[in-house]
């Protein structure tokens, strides 16, 4: 029998750790992927996912079933990602783009083209994924969060609006602008329609 997230959360509120474990099992994969897409660092994304779940558990007593569990979880994760990005910029963490010389195309730099140890196809796919990740990283924060939540986490516009804290109309505009910008970035990176169809 399927138990909804909200019911599991209510059980967790009463101290049922098994119910919480079920929630973690349900969301560990999408959450890590969401955080990974936001901060682009696997180990940190695992740490932040753990932190997100821990925060959910600690504030379970304050949880009200009126709010969707999914949007609550992603709100916590989004805030943690924002903090992480802010801390990184304060610590002046070096991104790939920073290593590329000025004027040089990020996606065709030597770093991205280090093909020595990988078979061609794998490398091509890996490169494409990296390009997409890098293109996503170039989007303004709210656009990236909105697009990631809609595209990869399959959240409704209302839920995204709840997470970001704006109206559904604003989310529509954010997503449209994000898609337009992504398309421009992908064209710039040299990804064509054929590649897309091959992927599919």
């Amino acid at each position, binding site marked *: 029998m399927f138990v909804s997230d909200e019911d599991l959360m209510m059980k967790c509120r009463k101290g049922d750790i098994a119910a919480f474990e079920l929630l973690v099992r349900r969301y560990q994969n999408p959450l890590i*992927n969401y955080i990974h897409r936001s901060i682009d660092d696997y180990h940190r994304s695992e740490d932040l996912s753990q932190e997100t779940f821990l925060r959910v558990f600690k504030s379970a007593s304050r949880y009200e079933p009126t709010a969707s569990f999914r949007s609550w979880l992603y709100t916590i994760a989004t805030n943690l990602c924002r903090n992480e990005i802010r801390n990184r910029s304060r610590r002046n963490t070096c991104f790939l783009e920073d290593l590329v010389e000025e004027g040089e195309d990020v996606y065709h730099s030597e770093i991205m083209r280090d093909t020595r140890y990988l078979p061609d196809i794998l490398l091509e796919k890996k490169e494409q994924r990296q390009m*997409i990740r890098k293109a996503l990283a170039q989007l303004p924060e709210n656009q990236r969060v909105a697009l990631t939540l809609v595209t990869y986490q399959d959240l409704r516009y209302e839920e995204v609006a709840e997470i970001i804290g704006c109206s559904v109309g604003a989310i529509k505009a954010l997503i449209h602008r994000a898609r337009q910008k992504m398309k421009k970035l992908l*064209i710039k990176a040299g990804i064509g329609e054929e590649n897309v169809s091959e992927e599919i």
Partner: protein
Amino acid sequence: MKKYRQTEFPHIHTSECEALLVSPDELSAYIDKELPAWKRHLIRRHLKKCEVCADHVQLLQQTDRFLRHAGSVEVSDDFLSGVMARVSESALQQRQHDSLRSRVARFVETSLGWTQHLSTLMGNLRYSIRTRSPVYIFILTFAVFTMVGVTLYPPSGDKLVEKSHELELNAEKLISFEVIQPEPPKRLLTTYLQGK
């Protein structure tokens, strides 16, 4: 390799498009199935007629499909156990914290109770002193005088012993000189009549 056409997404270009789409954002919402059914139906009909909008939607869908193939990362095997270990630890801390808090609350409650009792007692005492002060003053004075009297004129021990000895002797005398006088026998009625 065929490239994306290097054009901007077309904006609303005809009066029909303008009438149908309030803003170009609507087309993104259309591919995400975020529009009401009646509007989706209208847009679908419009896309069959309007090539520019159809092209626009196709490009948006391509971008979306491509993004979905960005790949995903796998969760490490020890992730769940790590989370649950931290959660158990946190639950334990919470329980300890709660028990400590409840203990402190109980202590505070008890001490508050005692304080209340004490203050009630003190209040009663104060009231009774205020109302019955002459009686207390009399009792206190009497007690003080008695104490002073007993201290100044203590009862001597020898006199008491002598007196008790005397009493004992008197009691012995009373016992030894007691004469038991037998009662005269009652005369029977027949004897009485014979004598008459």
